[in-house]
């Protein structure tokens, strides 16, 4: 089993490089094992493996930290973004000496990845850093001291203020200029349209895919869904990625038509801190316990809805840039805001489906903003009569068994709720 092996890796003195490889390979192996019937899933697994495994050969031109920036603007400026999202326990070991003890694991992992011995060559890279939290500000400072070329993007914290959108749009213009200078590319209207069409297609397909997979844990586990979703950030060719996703959707469709869903397990909504590859201990745990993750609401959850091409691609180049920037700002569900209204509204929309029986609120240690948001969400869920389970963890694997016991109790409670509803109905 993955967990026992990783517990061994985490607790014993191991070489970080070997443990790092083993971590993502184990995760990929398990997903592969769980889905022998889905042949087209292979591309997404290979994409992730390639990104993590062949990193030493990479010489990224433009590096983006976190998913907050609109990639179409970067693509139009002549660069395929090299996303650093975090997610690996073992990459944190390369940043341990650089950050305080209480830093969140996502930031640690990102910084560690940049400092990975034998990792990609970042010497010529331009780093685009959206300052979504305190750690990101300070990571930016650290990278600046190391002589890295940076472009910082402030995220105005009042999402509903007009001034915030204007400020964000201005920054997006400057960011595009910085990327275009770096890549020696002229940003034209045509390039922007192409980039937007590419990205929109990928996002539309992702929405179709997630709709198909919703409630079909028997066909596609949440871990696999998450991997497909995240692999978008690991591909160098978004068009190719979309082609493969289209094939996967067709395969999934044929399976869903043939196979009726098995006994429906309690459906839950997973919200809060992002669940990032390769640290899939939470998805695997929920899967083992028998909970079906119907929806996952993380900072990038709303990004997939930025698909409009008609309205956005009207007018001149600058108008289009403004429209894309404004859309990304409005569709940002990260906790960078004073009140995360986008996430709140999205969750309300998810509850409307009527198949959410419980909520698991995931808080990574150090990501305090998510913890702050829980109070407001708890009152929302209580209005809907949905129980909430706050799950606090980090990237270590030692707490898996403790979490399992707590999660099992929660799952049993959800089962009991179902019987009670049936009884009441009778």
């Amino acid at each position, binding site marked *: 089993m993955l967990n026992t092996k990783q517990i061994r890796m985490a607790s014993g003195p191991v070489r970080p490089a070997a443990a790092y490889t083993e971590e993502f390979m184990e995760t990929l192996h398990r997903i592969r094992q769980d889905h022998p019937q889905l042949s087209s899933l292979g591309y997404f697994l290979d994409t992730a493996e390639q990104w993590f495994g062949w990193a030493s050969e990479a010489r990224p031109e433009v590096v983006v930290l976190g998913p907050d920036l609109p990639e179409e603007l970067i693509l139009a400026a002549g660069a395929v973004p090299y996303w650093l999202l975090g997610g690996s326990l073992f990459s944190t070991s390369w940043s341990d000496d650089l950050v305080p003890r*209480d830093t969140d694991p996502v930031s640690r992992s990102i910084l560690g990845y940049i400092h990975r011995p034998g990792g990609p060559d970042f010497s010529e890279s331009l780093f685009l850093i959206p*300052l979504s939290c*305190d750690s990101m500000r300070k990571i*930016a400072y650290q990278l600046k001291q190391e002589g890295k070329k940076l472009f*910082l993007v*402030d995220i105005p914290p*009042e999402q509903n203020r007009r001034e915030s959108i204007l400020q964000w749009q201005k920054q997006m213009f400057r960011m595009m200029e910085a990327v275009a200078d770096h890549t020696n590319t002229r940003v034209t209207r045509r390039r922007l349209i192409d980039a937007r069409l590419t990205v929109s297609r990928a996002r539309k397909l992702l929405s179709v895919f997630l709709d198909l997979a919703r409630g079909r844990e028997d066909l596609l586990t949440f871990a696999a869904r998450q991997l497909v979703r995240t692999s978008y950030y690991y591909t160098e060719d978004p068009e190719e990625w979309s082609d493969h996703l289209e094939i996967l959707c067709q395969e999934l469709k044929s399976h869903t038509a043939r196979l009726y869903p098995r006994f429906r397990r309690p459906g839950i909504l997973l919200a809060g801190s992002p669940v990032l590859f390769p640290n899939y201990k939470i998805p695997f745990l929920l899967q083992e316990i028998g909970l079906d993750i119907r929806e996952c609401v993380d900072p990038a959850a709303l990004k997939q809805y930025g698909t409009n091409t008609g309205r956005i691609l009207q007018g001149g180049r600058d108008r289009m840039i403004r429209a894309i920037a404004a859309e990304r700002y409005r569709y940002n569900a990260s906790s960078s805001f*004073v009140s995360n209204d986008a996430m709140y509204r999205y969750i309300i929309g998810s509850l409307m489906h009527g198949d959410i029986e419980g909520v698991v609120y995931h808080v990574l240690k150090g990501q305090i*903003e998510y*913890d702050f948001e829980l109070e407001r969400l708890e009152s929302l869920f209580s209005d809907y009569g949905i129980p909430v389970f706050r799950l606090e963890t980090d990237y270590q694997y030692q707490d898996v068994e403790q979490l399992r016991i707590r999660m099992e109790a929660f799952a049993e409670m959800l089962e009991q709720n179902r019987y009670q509803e049936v009884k009441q109905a009778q």
Partner: protein
Amino acid sequence: MQTEEQKSKTAPGREPQTKYLREQQKKQRQQQRFIKKETQTAARYLGRLEQLSGAPAAMQPFVEVLRRIYVEMQGVETDRPTIGTYCVMVPQELIYAAGAQPVKLCSGNYTAFSIGDDLTPRDACPLVKAVAGFQHTGLMPVYRDCSMMVVPITCDCKKKIAGMLRDSVELITLHVPASREDADMEAYLRQLYELMERLEAATGSPISSGSLAEGFQMVGRAQAEFSEFIRLRKSSPALLRGTHSMAMMNASAYMSADRWADAMHGVNLELKERIRTGEKISSRSLPRILLTGSPIVFPNIKIPLLIEEMGGLVSADETCMGERGMWDPAVITDHSFNGMLRALANRALRPCPCPTFADNTQRIYRLKQMIRDNEIQGVIYHVLRGCLVYDFEYRQIEEELGKLEIPVIRLESDYNEEDVEQLRIRIEAFIELIKLRQEPVRRTGIRESF
């Protein structure tokens, strides 16, 4: 057997009423406990502050203000409406210009912290927990009386507490940019215009060039007195203790700038008199320590108190509730209204060594300058539990100070007294270390001949 009273309590129809009464009584008891504990803690720290030798007699007005707010639990002594602020980046000049008085609401209260602990996430910083606690109880007049609150978004905790406070008070946030470039300055300036409109609406007084100039004068005078105070504070041997100085700076949160300037003028006169008479706080050469890091807010003054009770001297502090709060005057180069606001935006962003900025190299320059000017022998770096931005900067500051051979120690603390003994041991050891590095003092002259 049930008594008549018990029977009447459980009688049908009367139950909701008695339950309500019971809850009211319980709430009242809780409030009384809160007031008792809060005032006791503040009184205890004021007592220790007064017991510490070398306090200038002229600092009494500052002590009285702290007593009024925390022990007597009264509001700020003013006939103007009060505007709550949460950071030095809120320009006080603008608030005075709107006919209001700024009140800094950052709190160091242990009792409020323990209440806020239940309202906020476990890892939130204690300062924010204390603010949440005070706001929740609604018992502190300084919080209750505010017509509006201004919260600059300087860290994740402030960002989220603004969202929480917004439900119960009139509030405006200021987005503090992470860089200090021209575009950031312009964006901040636009926010100041917005703040101005909100202040006018809250106070009902329009802000004019004249009233803004008056605001500048009020704050400018306080800064001039403060500047003189800092000059005198640098004296060696020391004329006063750092804990007293920090208490005076803390009192500025609840005093109008002109009152504070008057009181500070008195302190400056007394310090000058001490120079003239040769009076100093100790006959021995005390290890001169610079205190920097997370804010030290009354009554959480345990760290400067411990340093000075253990035989050290807080010669200077680089904290936002201390010297940084008044350090930088606004420089007006253009006397138009826009020019004055621009000066405020400039002052808030450009010189500020707050770790909210991504690139904060100037904090290192500032620390080096303070070390040189104040003949500092050791640095105590204070980190409030959960205050990540300050913690991030420690590593680099330690490295830089290492190059100057200045010993530095990181002290992590919380808003309670459980860690006092541990802190005491570490501070004592640090002071001993500095003493060992000091040149031995010759008590007798060198014998030249037998």
